[in-house]
């Protein structure tokens, strides 16, 4: 598989580091452009452009950490912060806008009502992505 542009959504979970490392390894082979994006979701009781400073600071910290992880891998990534109502459509739109070849997402093991759950964002991206999607599952013993 060869890619030229990769979008890596990050969420501040333990899977992010490994996903970014994986993206860097895939990218090293053919000088791929990587964008790591953090999506801030805003409730409908707020305007879309509401400035939620604590969340923005937290997101910045996560993106700074991701940039550091990538640097340690010897790769430079672009980080971006997006604010929207729902993360799934945002990630898909970002991939469309960037003309990405690949969306690389990480998930941690999560159970909802006793069942393993991918949540709502990952299934949305898998259904609607305009390109390949690689899903990295963080193993939790």
């Amino acid at each position: 598989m060869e890619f030229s542009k990769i979008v890596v959504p990050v969420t501040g979970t333990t899977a992010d580091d490994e996903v970014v490392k994986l993206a860097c390894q895939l990218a090293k082979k053919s000088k791929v452009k990587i964008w790591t994006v953090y999506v801030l979701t805003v409730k409908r009781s707020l305007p879309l452009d509401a400035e939620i400073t604590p969340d923005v600071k937290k997101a910045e910290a996560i993106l700074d950490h991701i940039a550091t992880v990538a640097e340690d891998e010897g790769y430079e990534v672009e980080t971006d912060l997006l604010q929207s109502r729902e993360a799934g459509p945002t990630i898909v739109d970002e991939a469309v806008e960037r003309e990405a070849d690949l969306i690389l997402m990480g998930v941690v093991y999560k159970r909802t009502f006793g069942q393993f759950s991918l949540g709502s964002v990952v299934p949305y991206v898998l259904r609607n992505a305009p390109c390949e999607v690689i899903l990295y599952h963080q193993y939790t013993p």
Partner: protein
Amino acid sequence: MQDNYRPKPGDRIFRPRRIKRNRLRRVLGIPALFSAGYGDVGSSIYYALGIVALVALGATPIVLAIAGVIYIFNALTYAEGSAMIPEAGGSASFARHGFNDMAGFIAGWALMLSYIVTMAISAYTIPPYLSYFWPILNEPAIGTLVSMGIIAFLMLINVLGVRESSRVNIFFIGIDITTQITLVVLGIVLILAVNPGVLFQNMFGAGNWPSTQNLIFGIAIAALCFTGVETVSQLAEETKEPAKRIPRAYILMIIAVLVLFAGISIVALSAMTPQLLGDPVNGWARDPVAGIAANLPSEALRDIFAPLVAVLAASILLTASNAGLMGISRLAFNLSSHHQLPAVLSRIHNRFRTPYIAIILFCLISLLVLTPGFFSANFFVDLGSLYVFGSLLCFALAHAAILALRMKKPELERPFKLRWNIMIKGRELPMTALLGLIATSGIWLVVVITQPYSRWVGAIWMVIGLIVYCIYRWKSHLPLTHLPKEPGEGGL
């Protein structure tokens, strides 16, 4: 990327101001805009028809038609304004850009009153519809109590930030439009076509035509039918290509709303007398669409449509009430972020990430507005006239702001520029905005003069708002009429 890929719709995305750099993302398309706007206006038929009939009697279809023309003027003004200023403030934004912060505040504060009353009136009319299943809900006191419980429930879920499903909303709206069209068709075929004279009798017969004062008040009250204009404007900031999609959504809404309202009102007056339609105690004023279903000539059709209308009405009115609350909280946040209201109203809950203070405060005010429902016989009309006080004021300011922007900033890019303009002092001014301004402000004055409840409650509301505004601006060392930024300076 695949060659045959087509981008999927979603929400608009915002890129917030970063310590380094950031972006917003917007995605709403025409269907989502239409459903949000129609959800607002489509819900109003479930109560507005009854209130209008209570006032305008047999002239109900005529006053709705006249109000419909004014609605077109409003929608067109908002189409130009929202395409030009794709912000969340609606008429408050237009007035702020067209005049100054104080005018923006007055429009926003009047709009808040409309939202509060919309929330209250939507909640108030849910129990009468559900009384099909539980007749005790028809008792005004019980109904008022249940309505308050509904508002308390909405307050809770909005503070917690429970997400509503847009798919569910669109599903219910689809069923709603289908049901209303079916009722109109059935009513025309089974009632009007069988006895065409009944409509004429119910409209113009002895005792069925209102007094001149009530006729004019009826036109004012009919503004209740045409909410949704602000809702679409509030969503402008979330719309992809707002310059193109917002006007199209408005035009779609105009067509859908006028056709359905005309049909429903004609069928209603064919199915029952205006006195029965407009009676809030023994008639169908509080659940007029249920009245249509209950008066269908076939028992089989009544058995199908009566419960269907009850369930649909309750769900759509609940959605409308929730939409009103979200509108208030967004507007309060918007006003607060522009230093027009104290910052406490834009405080966000640490855990739930919702503007909980604004939500709780305005829900409590809405509960207060509902209190007369326990003992006032005129409560239903009073609620309607209070809504009209707020909405007509903000519509008038929206028209005035669009005209002001045409005068002061004719060079501004107007992706959707209204046609049918007249030249005044070398500036093109749209006739629809001029006529809309005259109509809305004129009717507002009539309401203020003739309706003591809305005059005093509305005036007290506005005075309280202005006092809060002035004190807040004085303490913040900001001028009262601070002008917004010039285009290119981060504003328009």
